[in-house]
C-alpha cells in the first residue's frame, strides 16, 4: 500500500549537503553578525583594543609611506562562536604528529627557511574607497636554531602601485633589506613580527603564552589562529611546530577547505578560519606536515570592518607567505 504522504515524500528527496556547506553558512552568519552596523549586542563582545596581525617587515614600507595606511589588520572577536571542524582538526593533529618526528636541529646549526611574500597594501584618505595602494612582493629568510634564536632578513623584490594610486612614495631607505636578530630582547622595536624564541612546546602552555604575548586575547579564536600560524611559519624546532599545529587544532571556528594548491603549484590540504569576511587559510603538506603557504583573502565582500576592504571583491588576496625552501645550515649567516 502506497501512502499518499509517502508518494509526495518520494519525489522530494534531496541529498544532504557536504559539511562544508553548513560550516560556510555558519561562517557567513557569524561574519555578518559581527559586521552589522549598530548591532550593539555583537559589538559589545569586541575587544577594546584591536590586536594586530603579525605584519611582515616588507609591509612596513608602505605603512610608513602613506598618510593613512590601512594595514592588514584583522580584528579578533566573535570568531569563537562556531564549532571545530573535526576534519580540519584531524588534519592538523596528523601534521603535528608528522613534524614531531622531524629530527632536532643539531646544536650550533640553524633551520634556514626561505619564503616568498606578497602583500596588498591599501591606503585611503576619504574613508570611502582605497585610493592608493601597492602590491609588494619580496622574500623572507629566517635562520632559527632549536631554541628559537637566530635572525630574519626580509627584502622587497617589487613594489607596484595599484591603478589610481595618488602618488604616495616609498621611502628609499626602507627599500633596503631589513635584518633583525631573534633573541630574548627582540620584539621591542618590531613588536608585530613574531619572535620565535622562548616559546613553550606543551600545547596548552603555548596557547596561553600566544594569547598573552601576541595580544590574541583569551577568547579570541581568530587572532589566536593568526598568531599561531605566523609563529608556525617562523618556528625552528620540530617540537614547537608540532605544538603550534596542536594549538590550531583546538581553536573554535576552524574550517576544512579540502585540497588546495599553493602559489608554486604544490598540492596540499587547506584549513583555516574566516572573520569579518577575511579568510585566513594555511596549506600544508599532509605527507610531511610541512607548512606550504599562509594566505589572507576576501571571502565575503563588504563584511570587513576595515573600510578599504569593504570594496574588495571576493577572492582578492590580501597577502601570502609561501615557504619555498627549508634546510639545516651550519650558521646564522650560511646560505644553502
Amino acid at each position: 500500500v502506497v501512502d499518499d504522504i509517502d508518494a509526495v515524500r518520494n519525489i522530494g528527496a534531496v541529498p544532504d549537503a557536504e559539511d562544508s556547506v553548513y560550516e560556510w553558512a555558519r561562517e557567513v552568519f557569524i561574519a555578518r553578525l559581527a559586521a552589522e552596523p549598530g548591532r550593539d549586542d555583537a559589538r559589545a563582545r569586541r575587544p577594546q583594543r584591536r590586536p594586530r596581525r603579525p605584519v611582515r617587515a616588507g609591509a612596513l614600507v608602505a605603512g610608513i609611506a602613506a598618510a593613512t595606511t590601512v594595514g592588514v589588520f584583522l580584528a579578533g572577536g566573535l570568531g569563537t562562536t562556531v564549532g571545530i571542524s573535526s576534519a580540519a582538526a584531524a588534519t592538523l593533529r596528523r601534521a603535528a604528529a608528522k613534524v614531531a618526528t622531524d629530527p632536532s636541529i643539531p646544536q650550533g646549526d640553524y633551520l634556514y627557511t626561505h619564503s616568498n611574500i606578497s602583500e596588498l597594501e591599501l591606503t585611503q584618505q576619504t574613508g570611502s574607497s582605497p585610493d592608493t595602494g601597492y602590491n609588494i612582493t619580496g622574500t623572507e629568510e629566517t635562520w632559527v636554531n632549536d631554541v628559537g634564536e637566530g635572525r630574519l632578513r626580509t627584502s622587497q623584490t617589487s613594489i607596484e602601485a595599484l591603478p589610481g594610486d595618488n602618488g604616495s612614495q616609498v621611502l628609499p631607505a626602507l627599500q633596503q633589506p631589513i635584518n633583525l636578530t631573534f633573541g630574548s630582547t627582540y620584539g621591542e622595536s618590531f613588536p608585530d613580527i613574531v619572535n620565535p624564541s622562548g616559546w613553550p612546546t606543551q600545547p596548552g602552555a603555548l596557547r596561553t603564552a600566544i594569547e598573552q604575548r601576541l595580544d590574541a586575547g583569551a577568547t579570541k579564536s581568530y587572532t589566536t589562529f593568526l598568531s599561531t600560524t605566523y609563529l608556525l611559519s617562523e618556528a625552528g624546532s620540530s617540537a614547537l611546530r608540532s605544538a603550534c599545529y596542536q594549538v590550531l587544532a583546538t581553536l573554535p571556528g576552524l574550517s576544512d577547505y579540502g585540497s588546495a594548491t599553493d602559489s608554486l603549484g604544490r598540492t596540499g590540504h587547506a584549513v583555516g578560519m574566516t572573520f569579518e569576511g577575511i579568510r585566513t587559510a594555511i596549506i600544508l603538506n599532509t605527507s610531511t606536515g610541512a607548512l606550504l603557504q599562509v594566505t589572507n583573502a576576501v571571502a565575503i565582500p563588504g563584511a570587513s570592518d576595515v573600510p578599504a576592504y569593504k570594496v574588495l571583491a571576493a577572492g582578492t588576496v590580501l597577502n601570502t607567505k609561501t615557504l619555498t625552501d627549508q634546510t639545516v645550515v651550519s650558521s646564522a649567516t650560511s646560505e644553502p
Partner: protein
Amino acid sequence: VETDADLLRRAAGLDPMPFVELVQRHEKAIHRYLSRRVGPGPAEDLLSDVWMAAFEDRATFDTAWSSARPWLFGIARNRVRSYWRNKRPDSPGFEYQLDPWPEVDDRLAIVGKASEVRAALRSLPEEEREVLLLVAWEELTPSEAAIALGIPAGTARSRLHRARVALRGNLRVLASDFLGSDTNMGDDRG
C-alpha cells in the same frame, strides 16, 4: 540536554553562542527545505540568510514551544518567498507570485519520475500544498506546520485534509492503492 527553547532564552542576551548551537541542530533540515524549493545552489546562499533573520527575530520565538524547527521553517519560508520575489523583478507586469510552484515543479521534473504526483500537487491550492509539503517533506506534524505558516493548528489540519483528499482524487494511477490507506489523515505524525 538543553531544549531549543532553553538555547533561545540564552541567545536573547549578548552571547550568540547558544544560537550557533541551535543552528547546528537544525541546519540540515533547513537546508533540505531550501534545497527542495530553490535548488541546491541558491539554498547554500539562503541558509545563512535564514540564520541571520532568525537571530534578528529570536525574540519572536514562543518559548512554550520546545522545538524551534517549525519556527525556523517559517523563517525559511519567508526567505524563499523573498527569493522568488527578487528573482524576476523585471518581468513585464510582474507582481509577486505567492506560489513559486512552477519553478519547484521544473526542478522535480529533472527527477523524471512520479509525474502523476507532480501533476496532482500542481493542481492543489498553494496554501493546501504548503501544509502537505511541510508534513511530507519536512516531516512536521500538522500542529508544527501551523507554527511554520503562522496559522491556527485547526486550519492546518483542515488544509491538510483537503489536500490529501484532492491529491488522492488526482492520483489516478495510484488511486486504488490510496483508497486503502487513510492513516494519519489530519493527525499529528510522529
